[in-house]
């Protein structure tokens, strides 16, 4: 790389080379170490999870006694689906709507909304859970709706942020062309801007969904969990995959831990699938998602 000779002493030059080599080695080691770490986590969960993951795990509820072997997390998988579904229904319109207001209209308060979105992204999800407990659970009890609400609060700022970024990437020319044809602002946004940004928007939503699926702490304060049977009524307390992993992992029973590992593998697989789809959709994006 550096073939500079100049008048520098050979010793100095070689010292510089050595420092540079050291940097190369150090950075490579750090990079390799990080990848090894990823492999360690995924590999460990994979190996432990595959020991029990199977049809029974995916189609059964846990045994009444945590010490018993067998059973699965079907109720948690269903609960996660319902609560993340509720959260998505809440978060997507609010998130994309806020992004449109901030980015397309830039009306009064847009700066405040943008700033507070950034603040909301950083708020601990456990605090979000405590908030939903205070506004919902106190009055209506632990429920799937409360869980969905908490997850929705976690997802909304994430969606605002990515959507805003995606809307910003839409070319100004497209908007002006549409407006110049006498098409209204709203119609321009709905028929021109949003379709152009659609794959980027979907990427953002999917990443938020992946995040919500793994959340545990806010659900402990809102949905509480329900290990006994399949609950599809969102006004009742409800389990989730993450809650069941937590609940089974902290028991001292090997049988329960086996279920928890299978659950952890299932959860990771779900999250990775969503992340992967998000990336693939994003790559197809006309405006090159990140």
């Amino acid at each position, binding site marked *: *790389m*550096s*073939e*500079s000779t100049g008048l520098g002493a050979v010793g100095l030059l070689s010292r510089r080379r050595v*420092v*540079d080599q*050291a940097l*190369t080695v*150090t*950075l490579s080691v*750090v990079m390799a170490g*990080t990848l090894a770490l*990823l492999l360690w*986590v995924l590999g*460990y*969960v994979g190996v432990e999870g595959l020991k029990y993951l199977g049809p029974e795990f995916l189609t059964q509820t846990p045994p009444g006694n945590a010490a018993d072997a067998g059973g699965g997390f079907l109720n948690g998988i269903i609960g996660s689906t319902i609560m993340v579904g509720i959260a998505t229904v809440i978060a997507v*319109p609010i*998130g*994309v*709507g*806020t992004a*449109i*207001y901030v980015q397309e209209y830039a*009306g009064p*308060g847009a700066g*405040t*909304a943008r700033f*507070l979105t*950034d*603040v909301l*992204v*950083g*708020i*601990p*999800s*456990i*605090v*979000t859970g*405590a*908030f939903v407990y205070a*506004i919902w659970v106190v009055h209506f009890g632990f429920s799937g709706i409360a869980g969905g609400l908490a997850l929705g609060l976690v997802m*909304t700022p994430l969606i605002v942020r990515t959507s805003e970024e995606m809307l910003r990437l839409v070319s100004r020319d497209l908007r002006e062309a549409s407006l110049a044809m*006498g*098409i209204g602002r*709203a*119609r321009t946004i709905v028929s021109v801007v949003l379709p152009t940004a659609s794959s980027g928007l979907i990427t953002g939503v999917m990443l938020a969904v992946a995040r919500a699926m*793994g*959340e*545990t702490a806010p659900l402990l304060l809102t949905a*509480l969990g329900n290990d006994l049977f399949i609950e599809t009524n969102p006004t009742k307390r409800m389990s989730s995959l*993450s809650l069941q*992993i*937590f609940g089974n*992992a*902290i028991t001292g029973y090997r049988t329960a831990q086996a279920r*928890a590992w299978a659950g952890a593998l299932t959860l990771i697989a779900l*999250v*990775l699938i969503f*992340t992967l789809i998000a*990336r693939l959709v994003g790559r197809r994006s006309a405006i090159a998602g990140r």
Partner: protein
Amino acid sequence: MAATTLSADVPPSLTRPRGGRRADRAFRALTALAAALVIVSLVAMALFLVDEALPSMRHYNPVSFLTSTRWAPSEAVAGSSSVNPYGIVQFIYGTLLTSFMAMVLAVPVAIGVALYITEMAPAIIRRPLSYLVDLLAAIPSVVYGFWGVFALIPALKPVGAFLADTLGHVPLLGAAFSGPFFGYSYFAAGVVLAIMILPIITAICREVFAVAPSDEKDAALALGATRWEMLRMAVLPRSRSGIVGASILGMGRAIGETIAVTMVIGNSVLAITTSILGQGSTMASVIVNEFTEANQPFHLDSLFVVALWLLALSLVVNVAGKAVVSRTSRDIA
């Protein structure tokens, strides 16, 4: 703008300016409502937490939470307003200690990884490498906790024992590293948190390094600088505040992490454990541990006091980090 001048092919919906204008206004109002909801949610969050915490803060002196390191709900008595049994300093200590440890461990690695990806890796593998590092952020907290208990803690045991044997006997420093080490500890929590915030810090550092002007990098190389010299002279100086901001934001994330920490920190609530090898609690972990079982007088209200301080702490740290990072990008732009 008369509709008659448009060709007949134009759908009627586009040639009705009046109705369109009304729809326009309605649409704008809807998006404004969404933005208002976002603003209101944060304000409401603060207000409701205060409201829930109020009974306890009225009953005990609000300052007394911050002057005690002892959390003993069973000593709370409903009627008398004697000594406040709900001291929370040990939780604040635990939160700050674990997230600081995480930052110290993660930042050098994150800088290295970000430099490798932006400056050393062949162009075709840059994107895949970034994705792989980002995957670390996709793994759920509860999985990290579970993995931490069964895979990480056994691996940390020799490290902890070594620290206790060596640094633990150094006169002043010893208190921070004294054993015995049982695995569940601030240390284990710090390491798990470091892994969790590594991808976050890396992502920001990557962006910061990427905006270093390539002219100056090329100029340095053209003058015969080695890659290290180029990085030191053209990239790192401009990135300093970006790195600082990234570190603060990473710490902000660590402050709020709950489940993974709860699973590996040991959850002792009665006092500050000075040794990082000892067991403790964080603000987030005590909330999640006791929330649904809070049955003592003012117990739940006091957990809301903890939540309130946690909210305040994370707000301060995140806003500070954000401010530093955005100042960097303005400098560069």
